[in-house]
């Protein structure tokens, strides 16, 4: 609760600064504010607070995830300075909206009532519609925001319809009520409820970009300004998957057999389509879009194989995935700055002059591939273990084949950087930028070597 308030206030403060024209204050304020929010979030640890007759439920799981979200936003904002360094127009709006979006995502992790879920999603989405189009002059940006908006609002319609049906069937919007209802009616659920259930799934699937509701993702990611794409690919995705996870673990765990097959199929489709389509992409940004799709498929395993340990492994996975992806986007920002595009060809031979950047990107990609001892491997390992525990052997085998395929595209930039000859340009990355990259890389290593911290949290 406090977190959300803090974030909202932070957003408002930024706007105020903007009015005062204190452009240079933005980033410091934001970073401090985010830390404060983080602290406030952690303050609720082990307290298990309920607000407004449990419309907001703050338990450890939600705290952990919202911390991850805030932290991810934090590390994204570390790049903001460099990204917007030669933009003259005031940035308070963009920053503020980002913060509001974050607030929305935090709501999505804390909801105890479908209304809050909906509000969170909409806060997030509406903010993102704006952000996606924030690069007004660029036609690609316009296209991105239009596509995102149309499909987004369309699908949130389905979400709402689903919620409405759930409400009608169960007689409440409160999660506990609904779960009690499901327990009661487990055997003979009314078709209304089931329809509602699946419409809700679909609504969330759209946000997570689960195949076949993923079509928006690649285009929107490509069109959106890179920094914000990073936000979409990490915070938004994680928030939505957490929402789904929360919904299922709290409400629908007792009626597994109903949603299991569907999610199974969706997960497999997502993993395969994501990985297959990633292969042929000519540029890194779009490739990352597809990789994010495949990763949401992997995270679906945690939802599917809901067990005592799965929340922990989902947390680890989310963290590992976010860190690695943000790193990759960081390098992407650099390359874009230098070459004006993000085709693989612009990566050729940069390892010579920029060993640090090359190594960071390499490690990030290897982590996404799931090579030990990096974070990505540990995350995948836990995920597969939990899935196998629940007996999803074939799902795991397919997932594994998927990550075998993923090598095909994750290695393209690596090959380009190290093995191809290119114009030996020096990327201009400031000291702060470099240190941040190093920090992220080390984080990837540490998460890989000591995953315990996150696992044992939940």
């Amino acid at each position, binding site marked *: 609760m406090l977190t959300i308030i803090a974030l909202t206030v932070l957003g408002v403060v930024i706007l105020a600064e903007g009015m005062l024209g204190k452009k240079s204050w933005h980033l410091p304020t934001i970073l401090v504010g985010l830390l404060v929010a983080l602290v406030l979030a952690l303050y609720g640890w082990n307290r298990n607070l309920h607000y407004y007759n449990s419309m907001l439920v703050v338990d450890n799981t939600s705290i952990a995830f919202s911390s991850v979200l805030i932290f991810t936003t934090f590390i994204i904002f570390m790049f903001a300075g460099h990204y917007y360094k030669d933009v003259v127009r005031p940035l308070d709006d963009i920053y503020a909206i980002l913060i509001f979006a974050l607030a929305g995502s935090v709501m999505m992790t804390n909801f105890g009532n479908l209304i809050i879920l909906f509000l969170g999603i909409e806060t997030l989405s509406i903010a993102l519609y704006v952000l996606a189009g924030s690069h007004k002059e660029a036609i690609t940006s316009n296209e991105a925001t*239009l*596509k995102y908006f*149309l*499909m987004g609002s*369309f*699908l949130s319609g*389905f979400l709402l319809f689903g919620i409405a049906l759930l409400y009608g069937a169960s007689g409440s919007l409160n999660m506990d009520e609904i779960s009690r209802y499901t327990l009661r009616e487990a055997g003979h659920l009314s*078709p209304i409820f*089931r*329809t509602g259930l*699946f*419409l809700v*799934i*679909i609504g969330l699937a*759209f946000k997570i970009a689960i195949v*076949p*509701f993923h*079509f*928006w993702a*690649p*285009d929107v990611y490509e069109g959106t300004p890179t920094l914000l794409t990073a936000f979409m690919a990490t915070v938004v995705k994680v928030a939505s998957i957490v929402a789904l996870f929360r919904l299922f673990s709290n409400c629908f765990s007792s009626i597994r057999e*109903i949603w299991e*097959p*569907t999610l199974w*199929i969706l997960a497999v489709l997502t993993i395969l*389509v994501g990985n*297959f*389509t*990633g*292969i*042929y*992409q000519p540029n890194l940004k779009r490739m990352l879009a597809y990789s994010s799709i495949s990763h949401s498929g992997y995270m679906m395993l945690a939802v599917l194989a809901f067990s005592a340990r799965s929340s922990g492994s989902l947390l680890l996975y989310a963290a590992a995935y976010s860190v690695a992806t943000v790193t990759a986007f960081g390098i992407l920002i650099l390359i874009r700055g230098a070459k004006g595009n993000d085709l693989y060809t612009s990566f050729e031979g940069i390892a010579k002059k920029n060993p640090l950047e090359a190594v960071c990107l390499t490690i990030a990609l290897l982590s996404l591939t799931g090579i030990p001892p990096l974070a990505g491997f540990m995350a995948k390992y836990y995920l597969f273990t939990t899935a196998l525990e629940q007996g999803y052997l074939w799902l795991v085998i397919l997932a594994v084949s998927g990550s075998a*395929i993923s090598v*095909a595209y994750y290695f393209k930039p690596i090959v380009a950087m190290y093995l191809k000859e290119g114009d030996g340009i020096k990327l201009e990355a400031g000291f702060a930028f470099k240190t941040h990259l190093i920090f992220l890389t080390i984080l990837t290593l540490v998460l890989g070597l000591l995953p315990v911290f996150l696992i044992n949290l939940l």
Partner: protein
Amino acid sequence: MNYELRMINLIINLIPLFPLLGFLILGLGFNRIPAKVASVVGPGTVLLSFAGSLIVFFHLLSGHGTGGSGRIVTTLFNWISFSGFTISFSFLMDPLSLLMLLVITGVGFLIHLYSVGYMKGDQGYNRFFAYMNLFVFFMLLLVMGAGYVMMFIGWEGVGLCSYLLIGFWFKNQEFNNAAKKAFIMNRIGDLGFLLGIFLLFTTFGSLNYLDIFGQVKELNPGTGVLTVITLLLFAGAVGKSAQIPLFTWLPDAMAGPTPVSALIHAATMVTAGVYMVARSNILFVLAPATMTVVAVTGLATVLFAASIAIFQNDIKKILAYSTISQLGYMFVALGMGAFTGAMFHLATHAFFKALLFLAAGSVIHALGGEQDIRKMGGLGPSINKTRWVFLIGTIAISGIPPFSGFFSKDEILSHLFNRSSILYIFALAGAIMTSFYMFRLYYLTFHGKFRGTAEQKHHLHESPSVMLLPLFILAGLSIAGGVINLPAFMNGSAWLQSFLAPVFSDALPFLKPPEFEPGPGLEWLLVAISVVCVVCVIPVAYLWYVLSQEEERKEPLWQSFLRKIPANKYYIDELYDTLFVRPVMSLSKGFHEIGEKKIIDRFVDGIGVLVVRTGNTIRYLQTGHVGFYVFMMVAGIIAVLIFNLVI
């Protein structure tokens, strides 16, 4: 263990070590140490081991410290040993191995000595002696080893040395091919040998002669496994001793320097097969089927090789084929159970064949490398000493009394006669051929008029004394070598017989007894027959090859056709080439071109291509049209709902 025995053990272990030492010295310093040192070290080490063997020999004769068993076993160390499996590096000294030892080191020393002169000035002088010493070392391991694995070590080792020495002049790829051929053909046999060893181990749980021979007595004759074992072992022997069908490498092996041919390809290595069969006599005796195979193979080789030898024109090749056929005699003897006879012939053959080779070497030396007898002739007067020793060798090999060859061959023949008269007749035919081609060789080389070039004639010279001395000694041995086993009916003591008796004693009872025991009279008769036969072909040879060489040229067509086949060695090489070499080569090509590139690689890459193609197809779903996206999503929604609600 008393002092004396410890001394003996030490000496036994030293015997193989001396040549090894020589090898190490010469090998490591081959391009540093001067030739003089090499010519001392090379023969010296062998002489030392000869001395050692003599000591052991007399010690064994005296029978001290052997516990009456007539054998000494010394163990250096456990070579391979882990739970329930031990192969110790140990030597067995018994009459059989001692006989071999004496032959190897004795004849070996003489040949080393000869080489000092023969190889003088060759740029690989030191290397040569290094290889020779290494060979002696391995040969000693072969005969001294106390088990089949030890024998196999030596067995492969001598194969290696023969490879190295055949290809000694490695600038000439022809020689290298010959060397390679020798090694590979040997290895074919060795595979048989190895499998035999495995089967021995799985049957008897040990690979020591004494353990195996101890157990084998319990088995009753003709057991299947014994037959298989012996056949496999014999395969090894066939390869090493150049019997049919693996004999073609030996003539090519003549590419090596002549002393090598004398030592390795006449006196010692090629007889390893004979030694092996003799060593495992009890096994063979208990497998009658194998015995027949051995005998038949041997006899076939005798005739086959002899018939080829008649039509060869290369002095060394003729000797090579004669070696093959003499080895054939030994195998016939073994096959008939005349183990002593075989060993006896082995010994005498070592003497006179070494002599012949060295003499031939001296001839070649005199003619500056000429080996074709058609380009020789009339060399008698100019290199008289060589001519006489060569003649001695020829008489000895032809089996004319009282030369050594006579006694050994006659023992085999009479033994054959007692067993089966058919074999006897064939063997006799072989003997006749032998004396014919040998005298042909002798006459064409030393009689008639010289057919070489003028400047060759000008250069003709007798070899230096360092080469002649070994010749004389060997000549002496070839003359007198027979005495070691004078048969009883000549009031001889049959010393070798009694000396080797302990080795073969276990086997003899299992031999099927001869059809009848010939009296002395019959023995004399047989001797007479064989002598007469071999002697009468000499004038024929003289007539053909000395008096009337012109007619020998223009012969009727059918005759020339008849000579064509054996003259071309019955086209065996060509046969093998088409049967084995070419197929393997084309198979190799096929595997690489089709198996690798077309099938396996294509399949693996195919998967990759498939994945990439799929990716490339799927990605076109991303049309970029919102309308299409929305449509797809709705389709998806409907699918999900139908999947869950209707179905």
